[in-house]
């Protein structure tokens, strides 16, 4: 079991309040991603749940037990760190066995769990190596192995993939998702990468300056972002925002339109624009265009497949009316 409830939890460092009081419930077995720009308090929030930082006020409950003053060692949670935080003086086997040794688990049970974990993580050949002799991806697997064997109530991941190169990152992302499917254990995953958030999460928590902006499934956030910040943060490439006349037509202070929701044509459309940079990827074409009368602005357009235009060409854009997001002067969504 691993249901985690935060009740009016806040955190201050000295006089600086980094997390104003917030409420959040993470259901058992859920894959929850905390996402937000750097310094938004997502890692701090994770560390509060882990117990590595003390909360300033409020209450944390794990499976309806008050865990607010329980030390990290006794919370039954496992954590995977960005730097892997392996014990450099221990072999892979000893690293993985360490939490079980601390828990006083019998030797034969330890061996059985190490065997199971290392087989699943492809680490059987490296059991006697030291962390210094492993590649980044292997180290990350050892860190995950060390987290699995103790059979925690929940896994906490603190930007676990940000030290890996791009190709490895995609692979590990799949592995972690697979792991979640198999174990069905609660996982809380911190990242600044919205692609990781979208692809892995059951539930995304978008944070900004310590405040939860929105909680929802990836597609809820994509389809109905509750404010401009979430709208701009979720989705890649970023949503285009228009203010002034174009927005007033829709009865809004500003409107947002995703790059993939703009129809493009070389002969006619709602807005005339000049093509700036054009990225032809084969599968998609990304165009960075400057709308007529407002050349300082850049709008991003994503077209499926190839769309043969070049720098300086004129194109016409038409937004798909049903997919326009409207926001008021405070940046809140207008339904």
């Amino acid at each position: 079991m691993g249901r985690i409830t935060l009740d009016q939890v806040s955190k201050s460092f000295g006089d600086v309040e980094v997390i104003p009081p917030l409420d959040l419930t993470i259901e058992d077995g859920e894959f929850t991603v905390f996402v937000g720009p750097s310094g938004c308090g997502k890692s701090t929030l994770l560390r509060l749940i882990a117990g590595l930082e003390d909360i300033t006020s409020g209450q944390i409950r794990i499976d309806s037990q008050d865990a607010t003053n329980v030390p990290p060692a006794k919370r039954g949670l496992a954590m995977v760190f960005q730097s892997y935080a392996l014990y450099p003086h221990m072999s892979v086997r000893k690293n993985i066995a360490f939490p079980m040794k601390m828990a006083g688990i019998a030797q034969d049970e330890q061996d059985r769990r190490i065997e199971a974990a290392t087989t699943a993580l492809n680490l059987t050949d490296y059991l006697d190596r030291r962390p210094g002799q492993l590649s980044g991806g292997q180290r990350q697997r050892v860190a995950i192995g060390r987290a699995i064997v103790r059979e925690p109530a929940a896994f906490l991941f603190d930007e676990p993939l940000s030290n890996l190169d791009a190709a490895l990152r995609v692979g590990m992302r799949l592995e972690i998702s697979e792991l979640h499917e198999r174990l069905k254990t609660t996982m809380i995953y911190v990242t600044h990468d919205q692609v990781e958030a979208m692809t892995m999460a059951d539930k995304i928590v978008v944070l900004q300056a310590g405040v939860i902006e929105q909680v929802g499934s990836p597609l809820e956030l994509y389809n109905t972002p509750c404010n401009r910040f979430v709208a701009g943060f979720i989705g890649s490439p970023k949503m285009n925002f228009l203010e002034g006349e174009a927005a007033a037509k829709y009865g809004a202070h500003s409107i947002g339109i995703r790059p993939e929701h703009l129809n493009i044509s070389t002969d006619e459309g709602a807005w005339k624009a000049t093509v700036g940079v054009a990225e032809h990827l084969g599968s998609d074409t990304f165009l960075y265009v400057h709308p007529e009368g407002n050349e300082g602005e850049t709008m991003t357009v994503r077209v499926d497949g190839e769309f043969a235009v070049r720098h300086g060409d004129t194109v016409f854009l038409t937004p798909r009316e049903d997919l326009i997001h409207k926001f008021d002067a405070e940046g809140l969504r207008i339904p």
Partner: protein
Amino acid sequence: MARSTTTQRKALNTAFAWGIGLLIFFPILWTILTSFKTEATAIADPPVFVGFEWTLENYTAVLERSNYARFLWNSIIIAGGSTILGIIIAVPAAWSMAFVPSKRTKDILMWMLSTKMLPAVGVLYPIYLLFIKLGILDTRVGLTIVLMLINLPIIVWMLYTYFKEIPGEILEAARMDGASLREEVIYILTPMAIPGIASTLLLNVILAWNEAFWTLNLTAAKAAPLTAFIASYSSPEGLFYAKLSAASTMAIAPILVLGWFSQKQLVSGLTFGAVK
């Protein structure tokens, strides 16, 4: 062209370093040489370097007259004991300063170091009286405690710089893995800091071994270490340079050997953290 200048430079640097090294080593070399001379050659003017008749008579004389083994044993107990005691106290102190620093940690570190700037003789009187009151004058226990306290700031500083280099996340990982504070220190921190602890140990054994002010002032006969052994051959005996040198050589020999074999450790320990 560029290559030849670097080679020349290298040669110059090497020669310079050797010069400095020999200059520093010369007094020790001279002591060792003198210890193998007769008293007459020892005071010869101009001094004789190698062309003299080598003799062991000073060593026999010194060994006959004083109980070298007892002084040596006292030195080992005092130097070893004060270092081990110091490490036991300094590991938790350095741990807390490195990993849970407070606003005052830096000040405390500086304050501890500042005690080393006080001339020792300034506190001789109070400490001497304290020793009499506690009945530990001329005891190994008393000296062990004093030398431990004298060197504690250095031990704490060295361990502190070492611990600072250990990533905090690794200790946090241990905490998440269910380790108590004690287990964290025993299984994670100490093994990772072994090189640092080892060089701290070594340096402090050397410092305690060579410490002469307190060992001479707070001992008479029972607890006297090798420093007192050397001192007993100086002034009251008149000009017995050869015997004094023999005693000195015997006193520094163990620590010289220890230092020679562990110089790599020592250098890496002393320069640790300096490059980062």
